[in-house]
């Protein structure tokens, strides 16, 4: 384990989990999905299409090594499973083609759509994927098949990486930022830009003006939410709508998106950051069954 230095407020906790109640040796099809994103990497193992184990890690400087690290951490937690025991591995995310042991790669758009249906149920129609470096609004049918999608410009404005930078700047642990931002009496005007570079200088200006951290976070998350809502309205929001990706864990952003849309986001059944990897694993299961036919 890396020792977390106090100054690294952007560091969100990595997590590894296994469902102890299941025995993987009983499963007919063991599939694995790896979502290699710009900021985080998730690996999941599914037994006959049911979530069994996952690892959610930070992406390092090497895509291949990050995928390896996540899978190994998960296998270690399971204990007696080896990589060869997995029938099919599918890679997705920006770094998907850099996963040497994946049998197939599928776009993160397709995987997030399908994964969202697993995480949120088949009622979900609009999926907002808020990742480390991009925002995607995806419309899906009841099977999680993508009907339409829109993503942000070539720009990390308002994305996970932007929030990391702001948390670092304000010396606030990223896991607490969302809750803190809700502790304002009155919602401040949004900061004028969500551009990571410009927002940084704007926020420094607000600090100098004497604004409290809560108020600054509120202003920043308000701007992030506005940007996202513009994107959603372009693709057309249909209830039921759901948020996947890392930012779905930030209550400050989620609450503000809900307020602006006048809609409540669905409650996840599983960690919504896993949606992409779950989608990949579900495709992996189908690919394995297809190959045996």
């Amino acid at each position, binding site marked *: 384990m890396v020792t977390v230095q106090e100054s690294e407020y952007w560091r969100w906790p990595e997590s590894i989990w296994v469902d102890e109640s299941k025995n993987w040796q009983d499963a007919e099809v063991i599939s694995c999905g790896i979502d290699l994103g710009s900021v985080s990497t998730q690996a999941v193992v599914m037994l006959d299409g049911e979530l069994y184990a996952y690892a959610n890690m930070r992406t390092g400087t090497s895509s291949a090594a990050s995928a390896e690290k996540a899978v190994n951490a998960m296998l270690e937690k399971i204990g007696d499973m080896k990589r060869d025991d997995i029938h099919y591995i599918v890679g997705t995310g920006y770094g998907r083609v850099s996963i040497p042991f994946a049998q197939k790669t599928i*776009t993160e758009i397709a995987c997030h759509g399908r994964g969202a249906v697993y995480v949120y149920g088949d009622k979900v129609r609009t999926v907002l994927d808020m990742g480390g470096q991009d925002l995607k609004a995806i419309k899906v049918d009841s099977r999680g098949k993508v009907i339409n999608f829109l993503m942000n410009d*070539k720009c990390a404005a308002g994305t996970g990486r932007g929030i990391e930078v702001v948390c670092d700047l304000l010396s606030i642990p990223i896991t607490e930022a969302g809750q803190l931002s809700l502790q304002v009496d009155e919602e401040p005007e949004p900061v004028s830009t969500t551009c990571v570079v410009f927002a940084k200088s704007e926020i420094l200006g607000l600090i100098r003006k004497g604004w409290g951290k809560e108020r600054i976070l509120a202003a920043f998350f308000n701007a992030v939410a506005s940007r996202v809502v513009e994107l959603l309205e372009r693709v057309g929001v249909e209830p039921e709508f759901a948020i996947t990706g890392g930012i779905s864990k930030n209550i400050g952003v989620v609450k503000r998106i809900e307020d602006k849309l006048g809609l409540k986001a669905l409650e996840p059944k599983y960690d919504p950051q896993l949606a992409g990897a779950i989608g990949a694993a579900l495709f992996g299961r189908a690919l394995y069954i297809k190959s045996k036919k």
Partner: protein
Amino acid sequence: MESDRGGRMVRITIDGVQLDVEEGKTILEVALKNNIYIPNLCYHPNVSPAPGKIADEIVYRNGERYQGVEGEYEGCGLCFVIADGEIVKACDTPVRDGLKVDTRDERAIKERKSNLVRIFATHPHVCITCEYRNGCDRIQCTFGYPVEERCCDLFSKCELRFTAEYIGIPPETPRYMYRGLPVVEEKLYKWDWNYCINCTRCVRGCREVREANALGFVIESSAGNVIVGRTAQTDVESGCKFCGVCVEICPTGVVRDIKKKASNKWRDSIVAKKLPLLTEALELTPESVASLPDSPGVFRLYDENMEVVYIKGTPNLREELHSEVGRAAYFDYEEHEMYTMRESELIQEFLQKHGRMPKLNDEVDDLFDL
């Protein structure tokens, strides 16, 4: 020799290619039919050519009266070609036996460009001329241009844009200044005259397809500008039959169907126009693939009708495309380090335009029900 419809056939040459074509057809018609693209805008296959149409006396926009002078519309001026040494409009010149046409002559290109500059002087174009137009989400403008100067939501299928990309945007194109022209909400249609390039296609569609005469154009006395409008103060008074041909035939984003009424036979009778390809596609053969760079990038596969059927990013263009030989007829590619992101951008662009995924990108379709 006779054509299958009984017309006499003549032999002409376009850009060195010998063609047997029906006598009486225009150069533009026979060129497009033989897959030789000549840029054009006021031309539409369902209506007669624009040049020489006599102007009306009065038209109206939002009830406002525009009085014109006697005269005729000369056409958009984008289809100029050289025919037997003379510069002519391809949409208005019939073919004759032995005619030699050059569509790539410098004189013709220069003429097209100067007319394109004229069109862009009064039509929003920052998005069409923007360097980042292909990846842009068109929600927020990185360069801060006001909404009125940006292009409308029909950008991905805008005919003016396609034509302009083909001709090339001349550097002398002036900045567009918003003129605050009328935006009219009628019972069924919304007209934003700021987007009108006065090509008179809707006027001819209204007259020739529906025979309604609800739209017309005048020639302004001062500058000789063409202005398209209603032939009376309101839609009903002008004799509008609400057929929607104007919506279908407009090359830009002037007129919209407010109620998004289902199609009717008049609307359906308007055929799609042939647009230029924005990219040069190559034939998908082992030979053409062998000379590709073995570097990361994104490629698109096209079928025989030049429809995009597959979009994919890959760390090695040559290797990946080699395995695709036989799956499609043509391809194009671009080298790109961030190919997974570029792939998403191109798929997004396709989705916005067609409302569905490219056919072969749907390959995961059968994986949902297993």
